[in-house]
């Protein structure tokens, strides 16, 4: 593997950059692997990477029906934070955040993880109570958090509408300074390169069309490129996990919905912080390229079309202009959607299934990008050991039968 650095870059510049190797190979699938990972999004690639790195399991294939990172990993608003409400969620996302903090160096691939701070605005008295509760819990859990007044919010984000006469005036906010954004595509590519260099086969344009089992055990997967044998299969297919579950004859408490996003034309830097608002429902950051990256709402209906309703975009931009009146004349350049896998408690399902050797990692819904390294880390552990890590033990499928939900809806914070 070529090392990436300013020196190798300079050296290659002399040769017209013709010396670079492929970041990952494009091998033909083998007949058998120790572990097959279904889904070449960030989570699947991270799982393969950590399987190889942490557990020495390298006879692994990542099967991706399209191009790696082309699912939600490549179409999300890239917000990373760990200030969740419930302990279980906080610990999982904090593990992830810690991994983010060294990820570029670890992968030798700059994923542009940018800790520019995440603000969650409060607009009602109850919002503020919830913010207090969450920030207090975060700090006791060892996660950084602050509660800001309106004046402090304004000082951080001078262009925000702090009018007391706004329909829903800003009453304050929570701030996690270690939160921020990352370059989504680079995350997929960096993990792919890391996994590939440790022997993992990344196989694109390979759609899993069936999950074979022998009684209660998984034996492999049928794909658009033939049958691939494996006695451990980890499914990390986000919006498509329901489809894959039905291939294995199991049902999941998941619905797949379109979640839209949009970007403005690139403008000079004006917004240095990630701003999220639940009550006014908009969230926004400015990418390093200059475009404003804006998350639009989720459409209520089940949808696999990677597109949503225009009315949702209208509502989102009204919220953005309400929060940032000076953005009124900025123009929207492009919009798109992903397919998010929403669970009843807005928390993921990571663990074993009734089928032996078959593992699922899904339900990240509108907020799993930030979990990418952590999710891969715990899932690798779960697959390697056959039991969940303590960080994901609570995120089992059984919780829906026992009632032990981890209800992040209660946090009254959008889960991005």
């Amino acid at each position, binding site marked *: 593997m070529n090392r990436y650095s300013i020196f190798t870059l300079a050296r290659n510049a002399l040769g017209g950059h013709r010396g670079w190797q492929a970041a990952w190979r494009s091998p033909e699938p083998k007949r058998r692997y120790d572990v097959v990972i279904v889904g070449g999004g960030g989570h699947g690639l991270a799982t393969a990477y950590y399987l190889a790195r942490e557990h020495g399991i390298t006879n692994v294939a990542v099967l991706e029906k399209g191009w790696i990172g082309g699912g939600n990993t490549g179409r999300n608003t890239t917000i990373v934070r760990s200030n969740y409400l419930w302990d279980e969620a906080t610990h999982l996302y904090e593990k992830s955040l810690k991994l983010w903090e060294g990820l570029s160096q670890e992968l030798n691939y700059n994923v542009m993880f940018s800790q520019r701070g995440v603000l969650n605005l409060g607009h009602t008295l109850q919002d503020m109570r919830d913010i207090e509760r969450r920030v207090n819990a975060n700090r006791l859990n060892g996660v950084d958090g602050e509660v800001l007044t309106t004046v402090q919010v304004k000082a951080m984000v001078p262009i925000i509408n702090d009018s007391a006469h706004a329909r829903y005036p800003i009453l304050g906010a929570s701030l996690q300074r270690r939160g921020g954004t990352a370059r989504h595509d680079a995350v997929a590519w960096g993990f792919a390169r890391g996994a590939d260099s440790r022997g993992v086969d990344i196989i694109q344009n390979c759609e899993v069309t069936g999950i074979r089992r022998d009684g209660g055990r998984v034996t492999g997967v049928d794909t658009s490129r033939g049958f691939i044998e494996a006695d451990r299969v980890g499914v990390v297919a986000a919006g*498509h996990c*329901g*489809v894959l579950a*039905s291939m294995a004859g199991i*049902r*999941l*408490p*998941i*619905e*797949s919905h379109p979640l839209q996003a949009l970007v403005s034309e690139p403008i000079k830097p004006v917004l240095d912080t990630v701003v999220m608002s639940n009550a006014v429902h908009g969230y926004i950051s400015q990418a390093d390229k200059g475009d404003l990256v804006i998350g639009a709402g989720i459409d*209520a*209906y*089940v*949808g*696999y*079309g990677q597109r949503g*309703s*225009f*009315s949702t975009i209208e509502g989102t931009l009204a919220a953005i202009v309400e929060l940032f009146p000076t953005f009124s004349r900025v123009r929207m350049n492009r919009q798109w959607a992903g397919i998010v896998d929403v669970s*009843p408690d807005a928390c993921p399902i990571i663990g074993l299934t009734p089928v032996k050797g078959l593992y699922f990692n899904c339900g990240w819904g509108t907020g799993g990008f930030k979990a990418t390294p952590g999710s891969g880390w715990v899932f690798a552990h779960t697959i390697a050991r056959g039991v969940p890590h303590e960080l994901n033990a609570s995120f089992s499928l059984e919780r*829906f*039968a*026992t*009632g032990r939900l981890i209800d992040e809806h209660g946090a009254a914070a959008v889960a991005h």
Partner: protein
Amino acid sequence: MLMIACPWCGPREQTEFAYGGEAHIARPADPDAVDDAQWADYLFMRTNPKGCHREQWNHAFGCRRWFNVERDTLSYRITSVYKPGERPAEPAA
């Protein structure tokens, strides 16, 4: 942007409606007769298909009636609309 034919009011725009999720999930007649897993199945498990989906909609800004829609979740095309208690029209051969 869907156009949904309310069985009473006729075609109306999506923004007049509220979505209600998968249809034909019957509440267990005797909840005590089912075990926790079966109850969880009723409460949470969804078929969530990529393709033909039968789902509930409510004409919230109109006649406030609930009804069923059969819709393709990939193309978003609506293939049938029918009242509660009815079955969808068989697709024309």
